[in-house]
């Protein structure tokens, strides 16, 4: 059963001589619960792809279907609600809200949705993220690894259909990187969440079910990985 379908996705920046094709007729599908790594050199279009999949950036042409729903057929308000409920975004630089505590950052999508966060779910997630002791700390009072865990918590809390991570370990040391990948893998297995991870780190890519290689805006390689 295909959960995410990408059809002829194109994204162009600039005009005339300065025009850049960040994505050039990219098409692929991802089944529910698959953990996919997207690798490729800098400027190959990985982040652009991720942003378009997450409803953050609009494609020049092409379609993205998530759970059968045409993502870009929605207006901007519905697209925001879609991001809130269906997508979990993880950034390399965490992008946490500095005035909110770790706990408040994690529950933010749920709060924005007008729902009271489920305390049981929150406790479980904080336990899983090893952030129980740091729940009331502000981002400025957390280490890089802890901030990234908060960012993952924020992405997971609403149980979205797809988790999109843009180099989640890019800013972390090897120990913290290993912990983060293990955390993502565990969540993928436990909650059957579809995950797309952009990475430069081969170790991260090898822990994913599938590796998509992108170069000059095109998918150049699509390999299945046998992860035990």
């Amino acid at each position, binding site marked *: 059963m295909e959960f995410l379908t990408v059809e002829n996705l194109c994204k162009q920046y600039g005009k005339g001589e300065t025009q850049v094709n960040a994505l050039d007729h990219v098409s692929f599908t991802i089944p529910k619960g698959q953990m996919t790594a997207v690798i490729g050199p800098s400027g190959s279009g990985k982040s652009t792809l991720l942003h378009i999949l997450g409803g953050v950036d609009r494609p020049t042409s092409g379609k993205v279907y998530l759970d059968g729903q045409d993502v870009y057929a929605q207006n901007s308000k519905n697209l*925001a609600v879609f*991001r809130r409920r269906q997508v979990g975004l993880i950034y390399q630089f965490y992008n946490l809200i500095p005035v909110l505590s770790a706990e408040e950052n994690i529950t933010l999508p749920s709060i924005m949705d007008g729902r009271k966060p489920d305390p049981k779910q929150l406790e479980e997630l904080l336990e899983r993220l090893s952030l129980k002791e740091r729940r009331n700390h502000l*981002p400025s009072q957390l280490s890089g690894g802890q901030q990234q865990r908060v960012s993952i918590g924020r992405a997971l809390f609403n149980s979205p259909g797809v988790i999109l991570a843009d180099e989640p370990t890019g800013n972390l040391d090897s120990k913290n990187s290993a912990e983060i990948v293990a955390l993502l893998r565990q969540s993928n297995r436990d909650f059957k969440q579809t995950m797309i991870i952009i990475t430069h780190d081969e170790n991260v890519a090898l822990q994913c079910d599938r590796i998509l290689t992108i170069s000059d805006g095109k998918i150049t390689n699509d390999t299945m990985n046998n992860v035990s």
Partner: protein
Amino acid sequence: MKFETLLARRYITAQKRHSVLTTCSIVIAVALMTMLFCLYSTLMTVKRNEAYDDLPGHFALYGLSDEQAEKLKTIPEIGEIRTEEEYGKTVRYIVLGKEIDSEKFFIDRIKETAGIEKDNHDFHYNINYDLLSFDRLTDDAKLEMAMTFAMFFVVVIVFMMLLRLVIDTSFEVSSKERERQFGVLQSVGATPKQIVRIMTSEGIMLSVIGVPLGGALGVLLGYVTYRAVLTTGIAKVMYGSQEKIDRLVTYSVSPWMVALGMLLGFVWVMFSAYGTGMRVIKKSPVESISARPNAVKKIRRFSISGLLFGWTGKLASRNARRQKKRFIITVLSLTLSLLMFAVFGVIMDLAEDYYRRAWFIVDDLGIQESDFVIMYSAAELPDQDDTDEERVQFQLLMSDPLAYREGIKILSDSGYFTDIEYVDNRHGKMLKQDGTEGTRIQVYYLNRVGYDRIWKYQEAPMSYDEFVKYGKAITLNAPQSFLDQKPDAVTFQGKNMVPISAEEGEKFYDPDADQDTDEERIVRIGDGTEHDPYVYYKMEHFTATLPVGMDAQSKYANNDSSGSGEIWLLLPEERYEQDLAMYGGQQYNFGFTISCKLKNESDYQKATDFIDANRHLMIGESAYDAMRTARTVLAAVKMAALFINLMVALIAAVNMVNIISTGIINRKSELASMQCCGMTRGQMYRMSVIECLQFVLRAAVCASILAVLIIWGTDSFMNFVVGGEIFAQRGMTDGGVIVSYSVPVVRIWLSAAVAFVIAICASLLPLRRMQQEPLVEQIRAVE
């Protein structure tokens, strides 16, 4: 090109929005400074013109011969000698000096050069000390002018302190965004001095545009202020005629003063730029590089906004406190501006109201708020002495008791007057059942204007039309025993004057008799000349009965002393003619008053001329002139207050706009990040609006509390020090409260609403602009 200049130039072009904002701040600061100097220059010129107008030279020499005057031209300190003549003869010589050490030595030199002997008593002189000061000719004058300028400079320094907030905010915001870059520059070898120089170079470059623009705007603002001051009429009060105003009160822009204003503005810009640079280098390069933008170290978890508006309110509250110092400064300046606007305005209104009413006559019925009071009005009385009011009064007693109607008609027809009030007063003593006299009774016949005036500050017992139909007198004041009796009618006895023959009159006339008590006395009017022969009257009693209805005590009736034990009855004018038969002719010691307001202020002179021309019909008293002077002075004070208020409001507004708009711009990636997590535009706008609300709400609440405290203080002062009864008598109190509590609070909240609109614009405009960028671009701002 030096690298500091190069970088400064690049930053200016790269951060266009910040550069524009900083330039605008410089323009405002320099403009206000230049305006201040232009106004000082104008004031000094006006004062000099005034001194010159009194004596058009530094010295006036009297009793000199032409030869002696000629000799004076050899004195090097003398610039010019002019001759003033009257009827072809020289009256005095006007001397304009150049450089004079001391006026005493100068006069000695003149005497010596002209050869004036000690015993020459014809020679005398006048020294125009003011003109000497303004022209800075003597050492004392130079010192005096330096002192004046020093005093002005104190004001300038206070002003500069306020302006610093405006420029500082702009520089700090722009440097804050580059903090990391400054750290990087230092780490690759830039010295702290070079970093400071980047900021000062930026200051110089932005000043190239900002300072001349500010200077020009300052000159213009100065002119606008000058015109505004002229419109208050203060110049007219000070100088009288328009010709004198045109001659003396001119807008003067001294190039030196403009240059000084601009220079000071520029120096202040450089101080701000330098200060900002110094703040930047206080942090080590590592601190600057590692510092994440918008790092928050402490937050207050509970907030009223959160309680009221939910999570958007909570976020807004925390965001507003991210720059606590600036938040406090902005709220404080906003509070001050709202407070000044509301409270000062109300106190000035009160002062104006008090002064306005202070000139009015407070008669038995309360405050007489008219511009003219026509004491006695009647039919034409030929050949009377206008200045002898007593005589006019007696002459009037002979006239037709309905003659006042003619007076009203004349006034009304002139077209100068409005709200013409008529009050006729008859009095006598109540007749008891045993025939003896009792309480004194005053009967007032009033027209609609007079009736409405009594009830201006309180609820009327009925309308004037109902009063006319009522058919009974309203008791305005009476002893409690009278009120308790509730009589249906009252009978009283008064005095009348009946004309008698000259023979009979001459027989009994006693010039030494007491006019008030001797009821059998013969009254004589006229001066006994052929032109105005004596006319004699005999005093007779009359008895009148009036129906009495409801009592309606007036809070403002002037019954403090004599009136406290009297019975005062009100009746409509329409009844007067009918009751005349009862009073039976001219009554002794009666009076009627016609008062009115001026229709158009510009017609004042014509109106007074009209009254003067009709002095054979009326004697008019006007409180208008004094009132107008007081009003003009108050208007000028209000104008000055408004000016200061506007300055504070401008600074507050610039600060608020700065902090809000830059706060939004600085959080670009953060806002984008929240949108990536699913925040809708609506939610984002809502959060921004709440952020704006916090500034304004806090300022408005603080200003309201302070306003109530100040008003309480003022009210207590007025009631206990000045005396509440003075205000009560003039209808200026409401339940013992002199200064209104509600007006300033309403004004504060209305002004706060305006500030809120400005804040929303400052917040939503950058937000909307940001929304035009793709989310990806916005989120990359941090990376």
